[in-house]
């Protein structure tokens, strides 16, 4: 068997030099990972994820977030709604005629 054939058989590895995930991204991924287990207990509630663990819960995202932030300090956390439904969209309201809004002399 040639060298190429032996490599194909074992499979080439391609490694990407990806940047490390931010704390916020790690917490968001942890939330999504934990979500199936959270549904039975926390469905419809917001849970806060810090250091990849659930640290608080409640009915209002901002209240939960502020409670956690006052305990852990000024760091990124993830407060997500425990649901298996699609969350409703919010509107940005951005309707700007770009050619018109630029400052005129």
């Amino acid at each position, binding site marked *: 068997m040639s060298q190429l054939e032996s490599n194909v058989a074992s499979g080439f590895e391609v490694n990407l030099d990806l940047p490390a995930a931010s704390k*916020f991204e790690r917490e*968001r991924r942890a939330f999504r990972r934990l979500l199936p287990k959270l549904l039975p207990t926390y469905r419809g509630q917001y849970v806060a994820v810090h250091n990849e663990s659930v640290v608080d819960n409640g009915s209002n*995202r*901002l209240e939960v*977030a*502020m409670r956690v*932030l*006052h305990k852990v*300090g*000024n*760091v*990124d*956390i*993830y*407060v*997500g709604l425990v649901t298996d439904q699609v*969350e409703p*969209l*919010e*509107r*940005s*309201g*951005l*309707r700007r005629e770009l050619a*018109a*809004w*630029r*400052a*005129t002399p």
Partner: protein
Amino acid sequence: MESNPVIRYNYNAQINPPAPFVLVTLKNVLTGAEAANLPAQLDCAADRTLLSRVVEALGLPTIGSIQIGGVGGTIAEMLVYAVRLSLHDLPERDVEVVAHLDESWILLGRDVLNFHRIVLDGPRLALELQ
């Protein structure tokens, strides 16, 4: 509310058509960092207030993400921040906001506007705020 003084602003004529703007103060409640007298456009079509690059200057913590729908049904996922905000010198409150670093100024959505009595006088290009 009727006993509170009425604050009047002229519309900003630097953009076209002239638009209602007020000055707001933002605070990071955890660090005490503050940014005062920032221009903010009243945007009653917006469900949620949108900040600019000031989120970085204040070191605001990210607390989540939501999906925002724009013109024609475009959808973007945006990060949510916690901030303490006050219009002019009116009482401050903690709000959840989204941000885009490329936005030139703050857009005040109904999440903030609905706490105030605001009269938009288009012909006079002025607004009243209480």
